[in-house]
């Protein structure tokens, strides 16, 4: 070896050959991507089954002879849904105060639990942990035969959150609208409310820095903070703690005769394409409010998803909504009493809601824009004397849903699959029920929005009090999304 290397040419050759061999190896092999991430965390599940629920069920203010009830259910979940760990503990329906006794409970999955029907209602909550929590929904319903609260006011109980939109409220003299903020937590919450009206965004110091006491409610009277402002949109944001928000609306006719009561359902967060589902069939006003919270003028185009497909209403193809303002459009002339949905496409993020009255304009309901369904949506329907109508809209391509109606004991009454032609709204009518039922709608194909409406009979009996209600169908909280998180020491440094 050493004798071989004593020849300079051999030496040079050997070294060059060695380098060439190594270079060749370098060409034919490829470097492996180094693992520079911190110790790779075990892959986290992308979602977990909800094991804790807290729903806030608002109630009307006293007035007249009322019957108020909260119906809640821990619904029968689709096949294959995992169960949260722990033993099944009943969910309680109880007033807010920590020391209060429950007024009802949800004992078993699939069975509707109801609070006692009371005449002097107080705000309730549905709370609990354990396997029963997943998908739990509730509905707070008040019916009254006369007085300021005559008719039906029904709203799904709401998950606390930090961001709510309401469109179609009013501070004018013909309305008595109250934003009710509820805090289910044991820590005070702080809320800012931004108000948008026909004339643009309002600077209302009284609507900022609202402290919602722990386990309490805070009513914000729109007539006080925004007197004489019509067509209000509100953005409720919590800066500390979580709240539930609901807008109670008592309408009056010009001569101070009550014209019904209802809750304004929340609207989806502003987007460039919003869907207002479940525009009820029948006569009466259909008023669409479009709120543009941005500081640019929005050019929105409407299309109406009628039973036979979508069309653009003549003269309303495009609507200009000024920056920070709310615009209302009367749509009953173009809807012709058809069950419909509205699609608003805008160049700026907008949100919308629809106000519906019965033909006699003695009772109304409001439904906000809704997000498309992405999973099973559950809804407890209170007892109703008229058929309730499930309206399913496929704003884009043809969609299909599967739905089930179950009675209070969890027995399936109707189970069907429904295909919805693209752009059209299909309706399914459920007969009147003397007892609460619950509905499951699950999207199986396409983009689908849905809602349930209740309208008085076309030819009501003489002593019937008109009951108008609308319930949106939103994806229920069965799974909670989880985002991967990774321990990484260097995250602390720039």
């Amino acid at each position, binding site marked *: 070896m050493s004798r071989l*290397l*004593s020849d*300079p*040419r051999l*030496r*040079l050759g050997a*070294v*060059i050959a*060695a*380098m060439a061999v*190594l*270079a060749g*190896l*370098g*060409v034919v*092999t*490829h*470097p*492996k*991507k*180094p*693992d*520079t991430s*911190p*110790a790779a*965390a*075990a892959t*986290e599940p992308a*979602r977990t089954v*909800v094991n*804790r629920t*807290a729903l806030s069920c608002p109630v009307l203010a006293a007035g007249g002879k009322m019957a108020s009830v909260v119906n809640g259910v821990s619904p029968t979940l689709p096949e294959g849904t995992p169960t949260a760990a722990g033993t099944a503990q009943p969910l309680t329906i109880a007033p807010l105060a920590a020391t209060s006794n429950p007024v009802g409970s949800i004992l078993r999955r699939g069975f509707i639990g109801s609070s006692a029907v009371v005449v002097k209602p107080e705000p309730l909550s549905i709370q609990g942990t354990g396997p029963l929590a997943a998908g739990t929904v509730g509905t707070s319903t008040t019916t009254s035969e006369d007085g300021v609260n005559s008719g039906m006011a029904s709203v799904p109980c709401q998950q*606390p*959150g*930090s*961001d709510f939109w309401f469109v179609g409220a009013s501070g004018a003299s013909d309305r008595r609208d109250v934003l009710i903020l509820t805090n289910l937590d*044991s*820590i005070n*919450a702080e809320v800012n409310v931004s108000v948008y009206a026909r004339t643009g965004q309002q600077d209302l110091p009284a609507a900022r820095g609202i402290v919602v006491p722990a386990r309490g409610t805070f009513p914000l009277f729109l007539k006080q903070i925004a007197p004489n402002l019509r067509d209000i949109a509100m953005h409720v*944001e*919590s*800066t*500390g*703690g*979580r709240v539930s928000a609901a807008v109670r609306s008592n309408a009056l006719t010009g001569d101070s005769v009550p014209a019904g009561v209802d809750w304004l359902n929340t609207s989806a967060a502003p987007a460039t394409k919003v869907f207002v589902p479940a525009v009820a069939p029948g006569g009466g006003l259909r008023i669409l409010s479009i709120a543009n919270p941005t500081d640019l003028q929005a050019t929105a185009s409407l299309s109406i998803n009628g039973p036979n497909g979508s069309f653009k209403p003549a003269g309303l193809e495009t609507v200009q909504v000024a920056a920070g303002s709310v615009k209302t459009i009367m749509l009953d002339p173009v809807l012709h009493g058809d069950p419909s949905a509205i699609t608003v496409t805008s160049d700026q993020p907008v949100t919308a809601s629809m106000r519906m009255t019965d033909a006699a304009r003695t009772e109304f309901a409001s439904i906000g824009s809704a997000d498309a369904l992405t999973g099973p949506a559950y809804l407890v329907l209170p007892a109703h004397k008229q058929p309730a109508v499930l309206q399913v809209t496929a704003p884009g391509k043809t969609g299909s849903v599967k739905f089930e109606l179950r009675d209070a004991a969890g027995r399936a009454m109707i189970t069907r699959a429904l295909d919805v032609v693209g752009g059209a709204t299909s309706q399914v009518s459920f007969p009147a029920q003397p007892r609460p039922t619950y509905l499951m709608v699950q999207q199986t194909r396409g983009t689908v929005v849905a809602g349930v409406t209740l309208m008085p009979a076309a030819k009501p009996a003489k002593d019937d009090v008109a009951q108008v209600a609308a319930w949106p169908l939103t994806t229920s909280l069965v799974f*909670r*999304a*989880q*985002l*991967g*998180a*990774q*321990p*990484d*020491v*260097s*995250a*602390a*440094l*720039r």
Partner: protein
Amino acid sequence: MEQEAPAGWEFFDSVDFPTDHIDDPMGRPRVRHVVTAVVVGHEGAAWLPRLSEALWALNPRPDRLIAVDTGSTDETAELLAAMPGVESVVSVSARTGFGMAVARGLEAHGFAPIPSAVGPYGDDGHMPVVEWLWLLHDDCAPAPKALEKLLLQATMSPATGVWGPKLRLWPRDRELLEVGVTTSLGGRRDTGIEIGELDQGQHDQPRNVLAVSSAGMLVRRDVWEALHGFDPRLPMFRDDIDFGWRASRAGYQVGVAPDAVIYHAQAAATGERALAGTRRHAYQLDRAHAYYTVLANAPGKLLPLLILRFLFGALLRSIWFLIGKTPSGAVDEWTALLGTLLAGGWTQARKNRRNLDQVPYDHIKGLFSRSVHALRHNLEETTSTISERIREAWADEPEEQVVTTARRAKSTARVAGDQPRWRRQLIRRPFLGAWVVLAIGALIAARDLIGGGFLRSNLLLPAHENLAALWHAAASAPPGVTPPAWLAQLSAFSTVMFGPDGATNILLLGAVPLAGLAAWVMLRSFVVDRVARAWGASAYGLAVFTNGAISQGRLGTCVAAIVLPLLGAAVHTVARRRRVYVQGSWRAAWFAGICLAVLFAFTPALGLLIAVILVLGAVFGLGWRRQGRQLVFSVVLGLLLVLPWTIDLVQHPSKLGQEAGGPPTAAVGPGDSLQHLLTGTPVGAPAPWWFAVPLILVALVSLLRESRQRYELLGWFAALAGLAGTLVASRLGGGSGPLMFLMTAGWIIAVTVAWDSVGKSTEIIVQGVLGIVLLTTVVTAGFWLVRGTDGPLWSGPAQDLPAYLVSSQDPPENQSILVVRKAPAGQMRFALVKDGGPRMGALEAAPTPAQSKPITDVLATLGGGGSGEEGRQLAALAIDYVYLPGPVDPTLASTLDSLPGLTRASANDGDASWLVDRSKIEGKTPLNDQTHTVWRILGLIGWIIALVFCLPTVRRTVAVPHGTHARRDPR
């Protein structure tokens, strides 16, 4: 009386012969001095002729000259007998001490008779007569006027009973040895003169001292008799100090007359004459006598303190001896102290001296040397000992040394003598100039990085706040995680180098000059041409920069670049073939083991590669003989010294691909680029890859030469090994920065060795090639100066949190902050910041995913919108703040905003911060560190053993006083 001076008498400074009696310039009455001189000789044939000559030249001469021979085996007795006017020589046994020999001489011949009042100079009968005893050694030579000046001083200050001359180095050197001597109460003999101090008249004031050396000591007869001469218990060391001390106590002053010069050969102190006269170790004897002197003479009230001081000093010195692998020195130390304390007879001596005390201690206190002087002297002596031993340690075979010296002489011979001094120095020491340039360049290249806080980059976490934090971190890690070994080594280095931050600065910013210096140390052992050596060292230093180690903040490569040449030097010492019987060097093997331990800790891949090469080379190249075994031993030692880390490397081989700093360094390497792979330049290095091309080409050309191929092939072997290692590492997904550095180092060695061989050639081709190499280095250096601060390395605060959050981590709050970073549509990354935030080693000692799972779960839920419970969960995890550095993810921010139990807190611009309400929940942090105390203690013991074994052996240095008379060991 006037005698002819012997021929050749010209080595004294001033040769003027006295012609008259000693006149007092102050006009005091004359005194007649009668001097009896005693010369004690022992094996002094080499010096006695000079003493004889000096005595011939002396004027006035002593009135009687007594010579004592203590059992010499050479012609000392004859030479003594030939001295001018000497009495018959008295012979005593070889074991007789100096004082005893003087006493025997005086017994035999007596003091000089007082001459008759009527002498050659007239009637002196009215003049008082003073009798003196003058003690002389056989290796000293008084200047002609020495006795005259001594007597002159004695005339002027009659109160002084003991006089001493100024001692200068034999034969006519201006080097001062002693002008009086004193002792510290610790027992240290102190002359107050620095080693090598020249006599420029700086000590020429006659003054009182504690004692004078017995060489040339002039004692009044009554003093000598009153004190009974020297203490017979002190035959050799400290006899003079003891005598002076006693004289001072008894009220006879001791003075030094610097005008009187005596030249002294220090025969015993310089080892020219064997120190004998006793069976005991000279060191032990010296210590014992020092203790005895102090114990016998010190005032009684100081004794307890002094004994404590002796014990403490003995303890320190014995530790020093143990470190220096001379345990017998420690034994000497303790036997001397305990022997003297318990059976030294000092109590009897104190009793005998009780009646001496005429002068209170406070009056002579000023004559003693201060302890601080002793301390300073000890320090100087220790450092000089260390440097001397270290120098010796690497050059321990004489015949090679001779060759090197000859070659060196040849290489410096051409330096023109007429050049100015600085230029001559520069030509003689080109590396000195190059190194100064490198050091200044390092400052320039780091201009933006010095003093701006902590050094940081994406590959370098900030250094610890202080030494205690680093020390804690070096052995602490979450359960199941091994703390990185390099932290412990860095903490040891920080202890001597200005704390963790200072050490990091020195290692990173000073890497170029330090690596250059280390390379120079190695190249010295086989490269003779100074210019070649200077070039090699400078190019090696600059290679640290072209590798990108500095600008990317790769501490591992910087340290490896500094340690690699030291390892090379040690391995060279072990492995080279020498013309001596014993091959190899265990001390170098221990040192190589330490270097390997550093490499294993800082750059595991490089350490592994070199360990494999060393083991294979030891087994196949050197055979399983002594040298091979030493190399294998060093590898095993290196693996043992970093022990828990070694196990960790075996368990997680992916850590081999990292270097000090953590996982991101695994991305450093050639990437996909072939040219980066072949030129040893990592992608992202500050210098372009083609900077290395001239070096590689010249290294190839150098293979064509005929001579000294072994080192060049070794250099090429290192380069090819580095290339192969880089290939393997990058193909397995590891980092290869240090391996690519090894390639460059190999080429530099090859070129340096070639330069060494052909550097003197005048062929134009050779000069051209060398010019290309030099030009490349100069261009690289310029590039370094300009682009030195461009890299990702920057200097800033240790944490990027607001000041209140940084200070909240300190006690007593000890708060912890959860920093969450979320890229849009990306995963969240989080770090729990507490105890000063992420610092060095935090990436390696990061908690396992299982340990941080509680936090991961909470954050995962929060990322999905949260359930409202997370505020309580965060509080239960003892998290006080949640911090989102900008750009803040709006969804996550609003989730946190609405989370019960969290309130917004102030944050830097663009960031967001929340305070977690922990008032109701006593949280418990999920991440707890565990301190590996056992490993730490084992590691400390191992390192101390290794360091002791690679340090040179300490020798017992006996500060032999200049006046010590040598004795032959009668065995």
